């Protein structure tokens, strides 16, 4: 077990190093970060100064070394606009993103898993067709369009939900009393963005839970339990359901990666002050260090998340840790 964790940790470090190297090279291959700040007709002396400040006038290997050294120290750059470290702003915004992500996650499970199970149990009936339709729509109708339609119907025409922002409740790191109220207040603000974000994932969840359930129903132990004459309800609830949950939970973890993608546009539409909106603000303010910092932070968080999932797996399933 220790050896497994060690090897996984080593892989994660290599992946992290490759990841920042990819970002470093691709940014320099794609263009000039200063171009983003320097608008047409801006003072050449100013861009030169900027180039110097960001260390872009040095040779590539020096830039790369200092880039790596800064990252190792936990310095992801300074926001040009807010003159604060990117990490500080990022962690201020992260609770909001987590709140939205968690709500979307719950919605996707509530819609996707029961429907997926039903269509697996009743293959080729109209339940199955309904499930296929929902999955197809979930994967095809983009979240931002769903968000806009929700705004038109429930925000503008019916006026049921507030259209913008996340409400008054805030997560303050120093005050424990806000930690609970933050999660349980302002549901009205949360409802529409969470549904728009959860929409996509309910399609994915549905497909996974359907195929997971079908796999389990075809295994020998389910056949054996059925042969023994156990009632179908117990076969499903006690034997099939538990085992079909494993792939569902894996995908749910991996969904967080995709969620980062979809969440940007949803956060922009609903003006939800999460990490995605931070990235968007960085773009509109032409704040390159901010954009790069947020991208790097997301990469790091995903690698750490993958590492945690791998280790948790090894704890749960002995086959995983023995296979390496």
């Amino acid at each position, binding site marked *: 077990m220790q050896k497994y964790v060690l090897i996984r940790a080593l892989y994660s470090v290599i992946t992290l190093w490759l990841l920042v190297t990819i970002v470093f090279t691709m940014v320099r291959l794609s263009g000039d970060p200063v171009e983003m700040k320097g608008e047409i007709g801006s003072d050449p002396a100013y861009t030169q100064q900027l180039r110097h400040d960001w260390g872009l006038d040095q040779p590539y290997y020096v830039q790369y070394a200092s880039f790596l050294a800064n990252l190792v120290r936990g310095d992801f750059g300074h926001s040009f606009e807010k003159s604060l470290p990117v990490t500080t702003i990022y962690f201020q915004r992260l609770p909001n993103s987590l709140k939205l992500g968690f709500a979307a996650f719950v919605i996707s499970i509530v819609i996707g898993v029961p429907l997926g199970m039903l269509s697996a149990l009743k293959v080729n009936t109209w339940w199955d067709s309904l499930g296929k339709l929902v999955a197809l729509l979930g*994967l095809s109708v983009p979240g931002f369009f769903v968000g806009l339609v929700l705004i038109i119907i429930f925000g503008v025409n019916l006026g049921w939900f507030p259209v913008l922002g996340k409400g008054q409740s805030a997560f303050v790191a120093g005050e424990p009393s806000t930690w609970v109220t933050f999660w349980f207040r302002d549901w009205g603000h949360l409802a529409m963005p969470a549904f728009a974000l959860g929409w996509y994932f309910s399609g994915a969840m549905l497909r996974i839970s359907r195929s997971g359930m079908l796999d389990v129903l075809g295994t020998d132990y389910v056949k054996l339990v059925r042969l023994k004459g156990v009632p179908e309800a117990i076969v499903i609830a006690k034997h099939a359901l538990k085992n079909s949950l494993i792939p569902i939970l894996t995908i749910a973890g991996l969904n967080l990666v995709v969620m980062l993608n979809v969440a940007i546009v949803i956060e922009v539409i609903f003006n939800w002050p999460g990490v995605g909106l931070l990235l968007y603000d960085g773009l509109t303010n032409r704040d390159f260090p901010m*954009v790069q910092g947020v991208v790097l932070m997301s990469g790091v968080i995903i690698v750490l998340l993958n590492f945690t999932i791998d280790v948790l797996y090894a704890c749960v399933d002995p086959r995983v840790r023995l296979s390496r």
Partner: protein
Amino acid sequence: MAITFDDVRSVTTNAERARRLFGYMRQLPMIPLFVLSLLGFVAIFADVIAPHSELDPVKPTSAQCQALYGAPDCPYLEDVPPFWSEGGSLTTPLGTDFLGRDVLSRLMYGARISLIVALMGTVVAGTIGTLLGVIAGYMGRWWDQVIMRVTDAWLTLPSLVFAILLLSVRGPGMWNVVLVLALVFWSRYSRAVRGEVLALRERDFVKLAEINGISKTRIIFRHLIPNVMNTVMVLFSLQVGVAVIIEASLSFLGVGVPPPEPSWGLMLAQERDAMMEGKWWLAVFPGICISLLVLSANMLGDWLRVRLDPQLRNR
């Protein structure tokens, strides 16, 4: 009497041939094929069939100007509703946008942008990814190690976030979006293709080719790549939908296709304020177009996957 070729051919009657053709056609996914060919047709012939220019406002008649502004002449009419609601007219069937441009014409030209960006981006990504995947799988050893480590690291980067970063340095533009889509998405192909090649290279025909002293390049291009095309085609058709959504998202966020080009994502973004005032049609039509395109691409992809991947036939 000897049986000639003509006699054998005459056994299958025209009716039978028609029935066979019909039977084959019935297996095709008709709805997505219809939508995709319609969108493709519109995209190719947008110049000919679009009723108005996609960049210039529609010139209003003096009667319309008189009714709205009380003057006989005005530059354009903005936010005209579609023809079935009050105030709409059949000259601009889906209304006009905030600069008085015809929404229908812009949607038609938008189909061209969406299809070019999504198809080109996916083709380039597929080419890079397939080549690297075949090399990694066939050459093995450190080729495999290096390419797969990089692929894995690449896969951990969230695609839209990475694309935003690259476009923020590269600058907006249609061909830049194509380039960035290729840079972001190649890793999906190399992972899938490598797995396929690992199994293929143990097969007899590859072994025999090696024994015959055929060069590695030739084996890769003549024996391996044709055999992984099924997998690549399935991935390709499923990725096109993703690419359309990513292009729309990028344009929506203002780093994709720049204004005044009529990208569907950009049209959605530009009409957000008008939408809040209750002018729903401005945002809904481009949204429906994006959804239809992605929906048909995904349906076709699913159909291909079932047809081309025997492991999935019973799912």
